[in-house]
Structures are given as C-alpha cells and as structure tokens.
C-alpha cells in the first residue's frame, strides 16, 4: 500500500527554470493538498483540490500552479522558479475535507533554487 507518493524527492533548479512536482495517492481520496515547510514557518498550504478537475488557492499560492486532471494525481508547477521557493514540499490527501478528515502526507520533495 503506497499511500501518498511524491516525485521527485530532490531537485535543484536555477532561477527562472520551471518544473512540476507530482503527487499520486492510491487511497481513492477526494481531497488533496500541497504544503511547503520552511524553518520557523511551519507548514503552509499552497493549493488544494476538493475533487477531480477542481483546485483552489491556499495561504501562499503565488508563483505556483496546480492541476488535478485525474482523481489520484495532483500536480504542483513552478513556472519560473525563484530562490524564495527553496523549501520542502509536502503533498497530502484526505478522504473528506480536512474539516473532519484525517490527512495523510507524502514523504516530501526537497527543492533548491539557485
């Protein structure tokens, strides 16, 4: 049972480059989320999705785009990477909204932007 899987686990980018982080879950969860974790800032919500084909902004959405074309996948894109986007990114999913549902996290993706 894989749960929530993120790829890649590590990536180094130059300023201005683009990339996509992929999150896949095999638990048939409706809700999926992208968080970033920075020292002293805790986990902050970037974007989330309440179902296939729908996405919404979280706390810190600027500089990121997302897509949820298939229920099991949630993609996070950086169109023009900036050093401020150096962070550890976590994907999560839940059966229902986090209002009442239990969140399960992926292993994280460490991104460095030079």
């Amino acid at each position, binding site marked *: 049972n894989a749960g929530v899987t993120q790829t890649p686990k590590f990536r180094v980018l130059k300023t201005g480059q683009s990339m996509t982080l992929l999150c896949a879950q095999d638990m048939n969860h409706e809700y999926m989320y992208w968080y970033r974790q920075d020292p002293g800032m*805790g*986990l902050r919500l970037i974007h989330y999705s309440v179902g296939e084909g729908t996405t919404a902004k979280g706390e810190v959405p600027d500089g990121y785009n997302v897509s949820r074309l298939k229920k099991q996948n949630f993609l996070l894109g950086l169109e023009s990477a900036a050093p401020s986007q150096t962070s550890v990114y976590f994907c999560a999913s839940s059966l229902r909204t986090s*209002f009442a549902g239990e969140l399960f*996290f992926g292993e994280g993706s460490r991104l460095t932007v030079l």
Partner: protein
Amino acid sequence: GIQVEQSPPDLILQEGANSTLRCNFSDSVNNLQWFHQNPWGQLINLFYIPSGTKQNGRLSATTVATERYSLLYISSSQTTDSGVYFCAVVGTTDSWGKLQFGAGTQVVVTP
C-alpha cells in the same frame, strides 16, 4: 484564525523515560491530529483525535475539546521516537477547514 501552541518547544529524554507533550488551541475544533516528523523529514500520522483518548503501542493521546487542549504521551521512549511532534487542528469557524499546525515540539531521545 485559530491559534495552536505546543509545549515544551524542546525536550531531551533518556531512553526509557516517559514524557507528555501538550497542544493548546484557541477555539473549538472539528479536527485534531498529531504527527511525528522523523529526522529524515517524513510526516507520519500518529493520531486523529478531535476528542477522547486513543492508544497505539507506547503512544497515547487525549483531547479535552471543551478545555481546548490535547496531550500526547510517550512511554518508555526509544531513540526512534526522536523528531518533531506536530499538533494540527481545524477550527469550527474555518470557512473550508484548513489544518492549522503548531510550531512543534523537538524531541531528542538519547541512548
């Protein structure tokens, strides 16, 4: 928004010791979870516990929702218990249910 305070911020334990971590929150909650972030960065679910008491091996948790706090108990600690423990809640007044994380308790268990 809802405020989440965890204490203590840091904890050093000798292997075999017991400890209690606390999570206070400023408003009523519909959701409360405890996570362990291990030294490799993985976030692992410990408990989904908006109210009541649960136990899983050497770990147990209690949430007293009416008094706005939750406790995580670690008994007979092991070096593998090292890491950061996060409490996260969803306030009843949150518009869509955003999980708000506390700052965490850094636990170091020494052999």
